[in-house]
């Protein structure tokens, strides 16, 4: 429960605010930033939620903005913080970029959105697809009267009735990102696969969909022998349209999809991953004169696959831009080598080592690390049309595909292999 939601600029001034209850006067918004600054001054950790004089401040940061919610009660912090992130997502979708400028240009529409998304301090509809149907960008210019879609009060709150497409199609994108942490001595200490099944859905009416994956647990529970490989997903999260109780019972993923683009499910696997792109870097630094880098890259995947847009970021001293080693296409099993050297000023700051690790970016199309496969996507609609499902696979680096460097770059020490 939140009594008030406000968006503040970087100086703590309220750009727009909405009171949902009267128990917290808006004047408390102005206290937010001074409190944060005080805490910073006193070396107290500034956390997303804190309390002062009986008022609870819950906030998130986005670009140069603070999204702040105030409350006097023992509110559900998870709910409010998550709601603020949703609010951020919805506003970003409306205005492309959520920043001071776009807020100033759209007071009325933001008020409307704030009003629809939260009532009396409780989150209501936060699905931007549905919101966009009745809170439209140029709403004040509209001639026709807008009726709220039935969906807002429906059992199926994420899809409106009466959607029509001439060609019924569904596109599935299976995207797996690999997170990998390699320590300075070259061992993989942590690896995980974060997968997501994204859907672009252009279907008429109220279709019932059923998605079949090569899920090991399902194969085992139905006693069916798996044809080919099956995978064991450690944790699966679904969009709110998926019937969770059915999944719990017999691992069937059944749902009525929202219209257009959305993320159907995400999953996580912590099975050890062999590094797909292996990087070895050695740094030879001659104190006070120059530093030499040698970076070796190898694609450790099947020959018939190719990694695109491979980028390797090597940490360098503070006063230089990080060199980017870019390879447009890296074939499976192939090696590349980069050599670089830089002149250094002879004056040197003693505590130079910024602890940024080497990070790598890549994309490998038509490939998944886990071996996940979409076995079928059944589409049933009462009008009985036939629809075409399409599937694509992609494997990319996660946010955290990194390897650490040795603290002291002594002469010709190997930074670390990846």
């Amino acid at each position, binding site marked *: 429960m939140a009594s008030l939601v406000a968006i503040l600029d970087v100086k703590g001034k309220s750009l727009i605010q909405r009171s949902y209850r009267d128990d917290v006067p808006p004047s408390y918004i102005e206290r937010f930033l001074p409190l944060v600054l005080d805490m910073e001054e006193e070396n107290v950790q500034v956390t997303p939620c804190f309390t002062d004089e009986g008022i609870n401040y819950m906030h998130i940061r986005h670009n140069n903005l603070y999204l702040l919610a105030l409350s006097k009660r023992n509110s559900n912090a998870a709910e409010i913080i998550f709601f603020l992130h949703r609010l951020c997502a919805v506003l970003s979708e409306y205005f492309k970029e959520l920043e001071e400028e776009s807020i100033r240009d759209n*007071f009325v529409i933001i008020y409307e959105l704030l009003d629809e998304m939260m009532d009396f301090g409780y989150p209501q509809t936060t699905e931007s697809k549905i919101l966009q149907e009745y809170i439209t960008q140029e709403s004040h210019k509209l001639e026709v009267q807008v009726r709220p879609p039935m969906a807002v009060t429906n059992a199926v709150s994420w899809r409106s009735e009466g959607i029509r497409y001439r060609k019924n199609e569904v596109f599935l994108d299976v995207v797996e990102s690999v997170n990998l942490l390699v320590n300075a001595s070259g061992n993989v200490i942590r690896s995980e696969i*974060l997968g997501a099944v994204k859907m672009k859905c252009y279907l008429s009416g109220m279709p019932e969909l059923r998605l079949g994956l090569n899920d090991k647990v399902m194969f085992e529970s139905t006693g069916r022998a798996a044809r080919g490989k099956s995978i064991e997903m450690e944790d699966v999260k679904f969009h709110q349209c998926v019937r*969770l109780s059915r999944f719990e019972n017999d691992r069937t993923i059944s749902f009525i999809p929202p219209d257009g683009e959305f993320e159907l499910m995400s999953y996580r696997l912590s099975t050890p991953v062999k590094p797909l792109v292996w990087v070895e870097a050695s740094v030879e630094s001659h104190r006070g004169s120059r530093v030499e880098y040698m970076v070796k890259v190898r694609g450790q995947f099947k020959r018939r696959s190719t990694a695109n847009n491979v980028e390797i970021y090597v940490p360098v001293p503070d006063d230089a831009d990080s060199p980017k080693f870019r390879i447009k296409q890296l074939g499976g099993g192939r090696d590349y080598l980069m050599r670089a050297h830089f002149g250094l000023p002879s004056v040197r700051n003693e505590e130079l080592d910024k602890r940024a690790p080497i990070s790598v970016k890549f994309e490998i199309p038509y490939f998944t690390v886990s071996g996940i496969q979409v076995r079928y996507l059944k589409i049933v609609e009462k009008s009985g049309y036939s629809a075409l499902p399409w599937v694509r696979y992609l494997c990319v680096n996660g946010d*955290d595909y990194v390897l650490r460097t040795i603290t002291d770059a002594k002469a010709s020490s190997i930074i670390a292999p990846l």
Partner: protein
Amino acid sequence: MAVAPPRKGENWELRQQLNSEYRDKRADAIKRVIANHTIGKDCSGLFPDVVKNMQTDDLEQKKLVYLYLMNYAKTQPELVILAVNTFVKTAALCVAKVFDLKPELCIEYGFIETLRDLIGDGNPMVVANAVTALADIHEAAQSLSETANGSGSANLFIIDQATLAKLLVALNECSEWGRIAILSTLARYKASDSEESEHICERVMPQFQHNNAAVVLGAVKVIMIHIKHVHREDLLKSLTRKMAPPLVTLISSPPEVQWVALRNINLLLQKRPDILANEMRVFFCKYNDPPYVKVEKLEIMVRLASEKNVDTLLGELKEYASEVDVDFVRKAVRAVGQVAIKIDTAAERCVGVLMDLIETRVSYVVQEAVIVLKDIFRRYPHSYEGIIPTLCANLDELDEPEAKASLIWIIGEYAEKIENADELLGTFLEAFKEESYPVQLQTLTAIVKLFLKKPDESQAIVQRVLQAATKDCDNADVRDRAYIYWRLLSSDPAAAKAVVLSVRPPISLPQTTVAPAILEELLGEISSLASVYHKPAATFIGKGRLGAEEMAKRTVETEDEVSREKALQTVVAGQQAENLLDFDADDDVPPKVSGWAIASAAKASNPLDELMDLFSTASMNVPAQTPGAPMAMNATGGGMAGWEWI
């Protein structure tokens, strides 16, 4: 508000337009009113004129009026109640709003019964909103009856078995936010028998798969409450097994959500350390995690440390100790010490890591390592004397009081084994007047220890320190302690020995950071602010902070033991007295300190034991406290050289 607006100016113009006969002109005016309000101009005078515009078919205009209304509701409550009636009765939440403004009205008109009926509605959205409204009214009514001196604390939202069944049905069908409301209500339900608890757990479990973090935490809350009455082995096992993966996944959410999850996981682990036993790796810090996330992760990693994973953990902590964020580095070093104290068999490896860190000669790393080693010496006396020379070699590096004091304590404690102890302590004595009080206290005690251990060589130095402490020092604590020592030494050296060189109880890493009773309470409120702050709700809402006494009462009530109350009062009284003497303590400290005192006092039966234990473990708990609270020194108990930081 009643002042008649002047016949010119912007508001007057707006009023004309609001009353215009043309619809688009009116709509335009409302928009301008809202725009004016947004930039901070007072538009409350236009209230009646705006409200008039509510009678319209134009949905757009209706919403705008509604917006205005909500902003100015409190200036004209009577008018709003009239206005609400003209709105369509769409949302059940409206009742909650009316209740907020005029509770009597709500009960009088039977709105609340209507809401209860709505729980049985076929539309899950309606059920969810009815539940939200009832829960809200329930909460408001409770705080209302509190302020009205408990006159009829009416429970307006009773959940019976029939309601339970309806809620469980709606749970699977309503929107994500509705689920949160239903889950919170399920958490309040008191199951009649174990079968019912089991049923609830089974029905709630699928919610772990939801992608809304608040739904997941809400489900965890319900399970944590009802699991207490679950007896079926297989279900218990599957519940704990299935709880881990969703919790782990929360760690890949945006940082703020992550933080809320981490704070809750920290609580969960205090009750059930087994649920994430194999998952320590997910809590490894990323180099670009915000500091508040890193600190929480660190604490959780120490909680999860075991013999099996300690090597990986130490490698990781060593890595953190070479990062750039000084605060985080210090916490990482401190964590190494905590691991050493937690796991006996790993202590030697921890000491090794600390020695490696000292070798880096980075000032703040060395200082923190020295502080941590002092704790290790207290936990494992006489085990690692071999490293003392290395520590003494770093004497010049130390410039922080805490680190200095730690090293002096070590020297005093092992004075008989260190050949040049008198020389080392002598250097501190030279600058005695300029040192901070904690260092003065330590120098004093250490030199007295030295004297008791090697009386022949150190008579001169002990005289000098007693002189300096009694004559040149303006801190009462230091002076008093010096006088006590002086009298003890001059009248009865044997007694002095018994007091100063007494054996101290070993320190240990506490399993919990809050008292068991409070932990139970907080676990029942998972995902709320209370569980995030790790403080009961009553300490930060309503009348403001709960006094130490009231806190004590609550703890004791649940524990139901008179002796504890006494122990508690002793400790609290002692703590407060301490803080009165403290120059650095700001106003914030006493409540925090007493809160902590209570937390650990509840565990003890003997007040004095607890007092000793409290001081010895306090420094191990630093991360659990509000970080950065000013350091307060405590010098209690004549013979206790074990002063610690709170």
